[in-house]
């Protein structure tokens, strides 16, 4: 089966000579559709660089990045841009919604940029907003929404259309833990519908929503969790105490 995202021996170096900084070193990572992967690591470990390279917002210095089996290096710049609009959704820490647009206009922006007609785009947008229980707010302006609502709109924008890869950088931002959990539930639900998700976070509670947690340190993948046994194992652990 083709992975939604595959990084093969990816390295990223900024600068050269004495100012050279190696942000990523020989990173291998595969994420399948339906899987939610969290990337954890201390500040400066390369988490955000990994995400921007996976999303073709930045180019690797060496190695291969494949999205749905397509090597990004083989695509022209315009084809890469099309891939970003059609296949990859991003969720940012600060939401990045346009205040002058309504919620649904924000959601369908990538569809319209891709040439989808206004009417069809709105219908698709409203359907996606319905999945995240936010369709009632479709015609409110972004700056009229609460933090939690804005984040739902941002996630809807990331999954609208036929996107197969969802990339999120600290997606719960400054939300409190209960609203942060709601965001993780949404990302998890999106992956259960067949999207591949990669979430960068430094918060263990948020990472624990992922099927797999990958640990980065100084640009290297140093470890990852194994598939957790079912929750019933907690009962057995309790009985041993």
């Amino acid at each position, binding site marked *: 089966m083709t992975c939604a995202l595959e990084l093969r021996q990816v390295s990223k170096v900024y600068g050269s000579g004495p100012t050279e900084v190696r942000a990523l070193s020989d990173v291998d990572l595969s994420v399948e559709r339906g899987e939610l992967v969290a990337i954890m690591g201390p500040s400066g470990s390369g988490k955000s660089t990994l995400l921007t390279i996976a999303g073709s917002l930045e180019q690797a210095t060496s190695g291969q990045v494949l999205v749905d089996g397509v090597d990004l290096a083989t695509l022209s710049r315009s084809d890469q841009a099309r891939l970003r609009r059609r296949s990859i959704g991003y969720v940012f820490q600060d939401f990045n919604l346009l205040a002058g647009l309504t919620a649904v206009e924000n959601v369908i922006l990538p569809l319209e940029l891709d040439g989808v007609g206004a009417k069809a785009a709105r219908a698709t947008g409203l359907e996606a907003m319905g999945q995240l229980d936010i369709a009632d707010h479709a015609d409110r302006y972004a700056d009229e929404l609460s933090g939690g609502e804005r984040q739902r709109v941002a996630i809807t924008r990331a999954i609208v259309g036929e996107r197969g890869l969802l990339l999120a950088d600290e997606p719960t931002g400054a939300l409190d833990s209960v609203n942060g959990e709601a965001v993780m539930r949404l990302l998890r639900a999106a992956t259960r519908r067949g999207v591949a998700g990669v979430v960068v976070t430094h918060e263990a*509670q948020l990472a*624990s929503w992922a099927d797999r947690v990958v640990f980065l340190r100084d640009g290297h993948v140093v470890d990852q969790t194994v598939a957790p046994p079912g929750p019933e194992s*907690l009962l057995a652990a309790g009985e041993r105490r």
Partner: protein
Amino acid sequence: MSVPHALLALLSDGPKYGLRLHNEFVSRTGEVWPLNVGQVYTTLQRLERDGLVEADDGESERSRKRYRITATGHRELADWLRTPPDLVPPPRDELVIKVLVALQIPGIDIHELLQVHRRHVIETMQRYTQVKAAAAEDDTALALVADAELFRLEAIVRWLDAADVRLKQQPPLAPAAEADPSLEPTDPMEVSQ
């Protein structure tokens, strides 16, 4: 977990049989705290002895007794709810001890050791999160129980993270090499002083 007080709480909305108390305890704690029926009956016996609950008269078989909370039981429950739990940590936290011991052993990669524990804790957190994810939306009790465990475990991860950064910034002094014999006191009088 104080089983006696949990049982008093369950009795505060009316008299109940032991089996029903057991079932309510298990469902309200999200099945995270295992408790067998036998424990329920022995706890009820102690509560009865202490005058905190009383049983219906006339039945000798424990499974046929119905228990009610007494006025003393109500007072005990109210006092217990407001008494702060013991927040002083155990004197020797096992994980802290392991890390401190590891610092004394030459050749140990302390960051790798911290990562082994970090992964283990996060795998445990994933299991509690699965409990929350699979729970009914209105099962607030279970969410609270799982949250409590998750916050406790998260604190351990944060300690591991802090230790990682601290040890990177200030690597510990290497364990003392074999002592220089010239510095060893040889005069027995010197030792005794």
